[in-house]
């Protein structure tokens, strides 16, 4: 029950597709890989399906990186200039908070974290007042990886646009599960392959809205297999932001899994996960001494339930759940001290249950029983 960290396995169809690709690429003469054409075709297929999934109007605006951590570093460093002010939520993951902090310490930017309720949701009331004349960017995690709380992204980003700020969304906990539309909602959508998108770890990326590429400087540069006569990074997409040898196996895993997600339908994936979350919240409510953090409302939460119990060490709880009952959870600060400060669970942290494609109701019942036993 640690899907918020990573999906434990790829689906059978994705695994099959990856194995098939590996077998084929052992036979060099069967493909056109001598010039990277097969890799290019796989990347194009993945860009197209992700553009469809995220409602991006041009596939070349889907850029591959190793994940959200790399994407956020590229996007924040590529967009921000000296003297800029940035707004982020009070539940950001360190993938956002640390690059911001690094820029702040270098004296490049100022950053403010928007106050959230203890449930992790930003209050939009008075949000306009957080904007300064030099506020250039707002970055939000769509759903907290600690509390599950879903942010009112559309509302917040609409206010950011009124103030002329760029908008950047961290979709780590929602891509592949929640309906996401980038066009008209956000300037940048950062995604990771190994959670709800159910691809391999080490692949992810970001999508850019129209015109954003011209505003963003490449943060890393290098060979692109194009315009090689020039020592300058090319300015066309996707090459501008994709120097170096691509992770083709990772990209293929994303293409295959996103195709599967589209065929199942994001709506039904979300409905299933929301039902599981609601069920588990209900089970947790009946356990004496257990506190549930976040919204405790599945309709406003990703498939994440964070709990603690006054006086109990969450690390010990996680260890006992695993060693005595075989239940895998994640305890501690979940790479987000900000979210725990917001929830009032810093520095001890919480015990986090998170659900995904293979979670069953029986597993929820079993985990809740186990939780009862160890308390």
């Amino acid at each position, binding site marked *: 029950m640690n899907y918020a960290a990573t999906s434990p396995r790829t689906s059978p169809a994705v695994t099959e597709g990856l194995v098939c690709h590996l077998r084929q690429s052992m036979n060099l003469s069967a493909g*056109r890989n001598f*010039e*990277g*054409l097969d*890799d*290019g*075709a796989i*990347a*194009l297929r993945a*860009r197209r399906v992700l553009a469809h999934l995220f409602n991006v109007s*041009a*596939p*070349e605006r889907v850029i591959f990186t190793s994940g959200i951590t790399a994407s956020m570093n590229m996007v924040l460093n590529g967009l921000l200039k000296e003297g800029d002010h940035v707004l982020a939520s009070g539940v950001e993951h360190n993938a956002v908070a640390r690059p911001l902090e690094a820029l702040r310490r270098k004296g490049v930017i100022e950053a403010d974290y928007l106050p959230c309720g203890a449930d992790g949701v930003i209050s939009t009331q008075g949000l306009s007042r957080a904007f300064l004349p030099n506020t250039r960017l707002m970055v939000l995690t769509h759903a907290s990886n600690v509390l599950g709380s879903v942010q009112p992204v559309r509302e917040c980003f609409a206010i950011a646009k009124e103030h002329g700020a760029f908008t950047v969304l961290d979709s780590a906990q929602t891509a592949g599960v929640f309906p996401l539309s980038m066009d008209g909602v956000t300037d940048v959508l950062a995604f990771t392959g190994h959670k709800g998108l159910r691809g391999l770890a080490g692949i992810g990326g970001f999508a850019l809205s129209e015109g954003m590429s011209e505003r963003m400087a490449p943060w890393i540069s290098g060979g*692109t*297999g*194009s*315009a*090689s*006569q*020039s020592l300058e990074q*090319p300015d*066309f997409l*996707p*090459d501008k932001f994709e120097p170096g040898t691509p992770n083709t196996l990772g990209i293929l895993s994303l293409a295959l899994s996103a195709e599967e997600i589209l065929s199942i339908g994001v709506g039904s994936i979300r409905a299933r996960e929301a039902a599981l979350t609601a069920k588990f919240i209900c089970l947790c409510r009946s356990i004496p001494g257990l506190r549930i953090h976040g919204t405790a409302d599945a309709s406003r939460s990703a498939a994440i339930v964070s709990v603690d119990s006054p006086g109990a060490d969450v690390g010990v709880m996680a260890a006992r759940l695993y060693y005595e009952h075989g239940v895998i959870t994640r305890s501690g600060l979940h790479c987000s001290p900000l979210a725990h400060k917001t929830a009032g669970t810093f520095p001890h942290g919480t015990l986090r249950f998170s659900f995904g494609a293979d979670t069953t109701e029986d597993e929820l019942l079993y985990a809740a029983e186990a939780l009862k036993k160890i308390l």
Partner: protein
Amino acid sequence: MDMVINFANVSSAIAAEQALSQAGILAMVMPTPSSVQAGCGFCLRLPPQSLDAAIERLDSDGVSYSGVFSRSVEQGGDTYVPLGAFAAGGV
């Protein structure tokens, strides 16, 4: 003689190959000859009678290309002549 449509990157060359193949236009992707463009782009080679339909299709699909050339085989090697009528197109 045949025609060469040049692309800035592999992504556009493959998108073009797929678009043309859907339209029933046969074209071969290959590395751009260095006499067309220094660097390492990709191009499509196709017969002259397919060129107009191919360009129309690329334009309508929004596939960007960086130039069109005619290729003639002469003694001592291939000669590529840029066709001014087709400036870089697409998006």
